[in-house]
């Protein structure tokens, strides 16, 4: 939904659409690569890339709308998702000393296949949404949805606590992207609230990971199986 309100937008239509598609494509690619890579350090780097892309998306929408608030949101997203959270993750990585996601519940080849199916599903289920208000931004909605699905998939199939955090962040990236694309940018206050929540969750998960490592010597989530009634 682009409200140009009669004025010539600061960014030309073609450039806007091309950049938007590029950013969304790169977002999806990064998500799929996270599924593919098993080096935890590489996965964190991919998350940094996604954070930068999300900030770029917010900035692009800001340029399009001519809204300084969205620039502020972009800066916030960049700081949180490309700097703070990856730093936290690297610290967990350094503390636990686990470098690879060993033995995921679903192997890499099957994961990629599932990723493809989930992406198709995302396109299928978001068609009514797109049809509500067709615009370049909403056309890209399925991508955001697919990123969310991939994040959930990582959450379900990966064993290491750090991978769980990664899956969670991936999901959140998908949700953020959905919010940006569906509403042409979210208000600063909403984004601020969501970011604070996210930071808190990641910090809690970091503590949990540290405790798990202290208790079990590793961070395999299935160690928690004993906790049921």
């Amino acid at each position, binding site marked *: 939904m682009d409200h140009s309100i009669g004025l010539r937008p600061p960014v030309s239509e073609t450039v806007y659409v091309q950049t938007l598609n590029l950013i969304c494509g790169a977002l999806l690619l990064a998500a799929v690569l996270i599924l593919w890579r098993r080096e935890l350090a590489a996965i964190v780097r991919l998350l940094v890339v996604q954070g930068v892309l999300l900030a770029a998306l917010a900035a692009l929408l800001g340029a399009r709308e001519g809204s300084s608030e969205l620039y502020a949101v972009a800066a916030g997203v960049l700081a949180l998702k490309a700097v703070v959270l990856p730093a936290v993750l690297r610290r967990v990585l350094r503390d636990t000393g686990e470098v690879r996601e060993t033995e995921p519940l679903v192997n890499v080849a099957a994961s990629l296949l599932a990723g493809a199916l989930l992406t198709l599903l995302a396109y299928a289920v978001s068609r009514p949404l797109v049809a509500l208000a067709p615009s370049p931004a909403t056309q890209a909605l399925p991508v955001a949805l697919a990123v969310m699905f991939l994040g959930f998939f990582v959450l*379900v199939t990966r064993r290491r606590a750090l991978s769980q955090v990664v899956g969670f962040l991936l999901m959140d990236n998908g949700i953020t992207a959905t919010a940006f694309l569906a509403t042409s940018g979210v208000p600063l206050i909403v984004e601020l609230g969501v970011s604070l929540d996210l930071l808190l969750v990641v910090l809690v998960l970091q503590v949990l990971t540290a405790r798990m490592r202290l208790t079990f010597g590793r961070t395999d989530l299935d160690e928690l199986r004993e906790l049921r009634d």
Partner: protein
Amino acid sequence: MNLIAAGLGVVVAGAAAGAATGALAPARARPLATGLLTTTVGLGGVLAGAAALAGQAWSMTVPGILPLGAATLAVDPLSGAFLLLIGAVTVAAGVYSVGYTGPGGRHATDDDAAAGAAAAPGAEPAGQRAVDAGTGHVEAAASRTAQAVLPLFVATMLLVPAAASVSTLLVLWELMALTSLVLVLAEHRLRRSVRDAGLWYGAMTHAGAVAILLGLVVFAAAAGGESFAALRAGAADLSRGTRSLVFVLIFAGFGSKAGMVPLHVWLPRAHPEAPSHVSALMSAAMVNLGLYGLIRVGFDLLGGGPRWWGLLVLAVGGLSALYGVLQASVATDLKRLLGYSTTENVGLMLIGVGAAGVFAAEGNRALAGLLMAAAVLHAVNHAAFKTLLFLGAGSVLRATGLRDLDRLGGLAARMPITTALVAFGALAAAALPPGNGFVSEWLLLQGLIHSLTGTGPPTVVVAVSMPLAVGVVALTAGLGVATFVKAFGVGFLARPRSAPAAVAVESPPSMRAGMALAAAACLGLALAPVAAAAPLARVLQVMPTVRDGAPLADSGVRLQLVGIAGSMSPLLIAIGLLVGTAATAALARWAGRGLPRRVAPVWGCGGTRLDSRMEYTATSFAEPLTRVFDDVLRPEQDVVVTPYTESRYLIESVRFRHRVPDRLEARLYPPLLGAAARWGRWSRPVANGSVHRYLAYGFVGMLAVLVVVRLSG
């Protein structure tokens, strides 16, 4: 200034102050402070209810208080009747609680119970008991939590009839259930049975709330709005199936709160195990809200329905009345007896409501109005005498630590005032003149009997069901007399059957004052029920299929039925009884004035060395009844004879055990509970502790929802 608003303002402010006082005040000041604040809350309810019954109306919307939107309150005469009732019960219970929760006195513990029957299996470790063995004094009912929750409980109870939207009603309903559950559990450290009772009560009240929630949600969705005004407007457009579904669901839900059979199982457990002033509040006030909900939704919001609704309510009411009074007549636990008696009286009210529904569906407004008025009046009467009786049972419990009638006795000499007050309550509960229970049961019977003598021949359903209902009410009344003769005679007269009963002392003044207030209400209702004629007519105006002038006419001291021939004057009956009794006594004295006198034990049959083991006990008194209703009650008896080891002809001991279990509970509930437990065991592997599996459930569930939405969209 609107008196209803003022009254409800007092309720809310009093509850807040009472909760704060209960939570913060030092233990010594707590009973007096919270007791008086609870009484204030009750006075607020009385004020609001009386104003509403006098014809005032009031409504208010508080936006943004509930998560789903605004809280809506409105008070009409029907709400007013129940506000007045609950407020009055609260006043009596509040005054009473000052003494009951104060220092001194004994309360039943497992130790006391163990002396009479075999100890509960797996009795708790002694360390958990907060019992001071020296005096047996326990302050569980005076604990900080119980004292802080009491004002909240009565306030939510008072606000339920004022709720005017589905969400407001449900929130208040659940708050009421929650606070009452906390109060039921107040003495959980003393007796294991309290925990069982709490579990049963929690589960049943939750199931009932779910039924109400489902019913009202279906109703609101179909009517297109959740305020009562929207429901009233939309009810006419509902399909017949939806209306009946809504009615059956809310009947089950509200009925379980009212304690109707077969959803009554929690009532004879929870009401006795709560501290006695809470028992009175639950049994006299809270159960009536079930009746209120049924009338409000069935007759006001849905605006009446087909005849089978009425027949359903009538049948369940008849079953509840009979089963309740039968169990009460064989019960030996005083408070359990009163709990079953509550089921009986709720059954009588349901008979009135159900018959009113039948006649409303047939268009006979005169009878429908009369029967509905009888049901509401019986709710008020029952509240008055049940408050008095539960408070009396609490006084006995506090003085002796006993609830078992077989071990009581001889209290008339030691607790004369309590005995006199309870005697009056028992008279009312037995539905004998000049008690107040008589008036409403008479109205109920008049309505049922005149169903056949009205204009034109009665329909087949009426011709069959109403005589049956008359029979049920008559049998219930008869058994009720036996029940309360037993409760009073065995519990208070004769000689004490145990040491605690022999050393009982009269209750403190505040408890006597609380009981006296309830007794005064009974007396007022018994002698001047004509005063209720005009308010009852206003209550009936709320119900579109019932309203039709006033069912009762106020002709001086006589209670005159309108539309059918019948009148009675409770005042004249009372005066007649009084004069008759005095005349008989005077005559006997005059006739025997010249005869020689000899002082001997009463009922001694010439014997002079009577002891308490020769007395009738509650069990022996009820034995003929147990025998007559053997097929229904199925008492369990076992006799264990233990011979000496040396010779099997020499008997060392004989052990006899007799109990009357709740047969409906024993037959209906174990299969249900077993099925639930099996289902739980069967589904255990689903939750195997793996975080991944839980996440996968969520993921697959989300995808499935998305796909279904996409496919159906």
